[in-house]
């Protein structure tokens, strides 16, 4: 790795401190840590991830609950097994780093599972329905908490509930598909029928949160703080959700390139 650096651990802590969260915040954290440049004294992926995890845990003093996406997108796997402890996240190193943390609890979702810790985590992940999107799903539940989106190194285009929005709008490029899933949690094995809002294979579409993200920036719903070579974007989850609902009602295809 390059010997020069763009930010330090202290910079991460100070950047996060600048964000004013309400009481008992629930923070949905997405990241692309490399976008921020090199971090001083973090010469490996493990060390960089550990710095961020430690800095976020510092915020726990505010009684914050953290949720990290650990999506495994099981759609194309013939043998649909979702092992809470072994199924890897397809969202890169940091999400798999989080999965190894003892204090983190993972949701049962063979497609878009999340993993988190904090005072509200049990309540949020308890008795989630057997569908990734729609009524009472995680993305819908978060609207009822003091929830925030925190995009570390990623832009305002990363919208956690983008497919939930598609589901609510009953879009013509996705459909409800049932999957037989075997959920494994250590010794316990449970067969489930899981509903996922799949993409039509014949209709080539690319998901895109840029249009909504840019509008949210213009309306100052999404704000940002500099860190290293990049930025941390953050916003109130409900405000972003309400804006997205309004925009997508007018144009269902706003979530596509």
């Amino acid at each position, binding site marked *: 790795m390059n010997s020069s650096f763009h930010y330090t651990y202290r910079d991460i802590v100070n950047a996060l401190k600048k964000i004013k969260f309400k009481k008992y915040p629930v923070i949905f954290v997405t990241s692309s840590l490399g976008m921020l440049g090199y971090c001083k004294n973090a010469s490996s992926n493990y060390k960089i991830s550990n710095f961020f995890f430690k800095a976020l845990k510092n915020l726990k003093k505010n009684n914050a609950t953290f949720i990290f996406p650990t999506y495994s997108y099981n759609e194309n796997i013939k043998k649909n097994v979702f092992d809470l402890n072994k199924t890897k996240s397809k969202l890169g*190193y940091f999400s798999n780093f989080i999965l190894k943390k003892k204090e983190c609890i993972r949701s049962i979702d063979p497609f878009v599972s999340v993993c988190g810790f904090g005072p509200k985590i049990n309540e949020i992940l308890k008795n989630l329905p057997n569908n990734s999107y729609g009524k009472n799903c995680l993305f819908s539940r978060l609207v009822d908490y003091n929830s925030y989106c925190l995009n570390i190194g990623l832009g305002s285009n990363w919208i956690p509930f983008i497919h939930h929005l598609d589901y609510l709008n009953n879009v013509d490029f996705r459909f409800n598909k049932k999957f037989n899933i075997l959920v494994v949690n250590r010794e316990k094995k449970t067969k489930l029928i899981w509903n996922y809002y799949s993409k039509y294979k014949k209709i080539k579409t690319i998901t895109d949160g840029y249009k909504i993200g840019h509008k949210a920036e213009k309306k100052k719903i999404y704000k940002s703080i500099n860190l290293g070579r990049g930025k941390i974007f953050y916003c109130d989850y409900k405000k972003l959700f309400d804006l997205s609902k309004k925009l997508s009602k007018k144009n269902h295809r706003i979530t596509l390139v």
Partner: protein
Amino acid sequence: MDKKKIEKKVIQILNKRKKVKKNTNYKKYYYLDNGHIDSIEIMNFVLELEKVFKVKLNNKDIISREFRSIDGLISVIHKKLS
């Protein structure tokens, strides 16, 4: 530098990480969304692009939609060079 030359170099840099399939439709290949480069490896990739093309890529460039696809990335670099 014309777009063809940029394309060749971009593919070389990407291939170092993971081979880009020969018949890839660049316009539709979103290499970041397809996990071609890990989110942490991205900085090495950006610095290599800057070194090879002698350009400065700012945060706006990196988080843009264009940057996520090969075709878009070629355009971003082409604009910087012209």
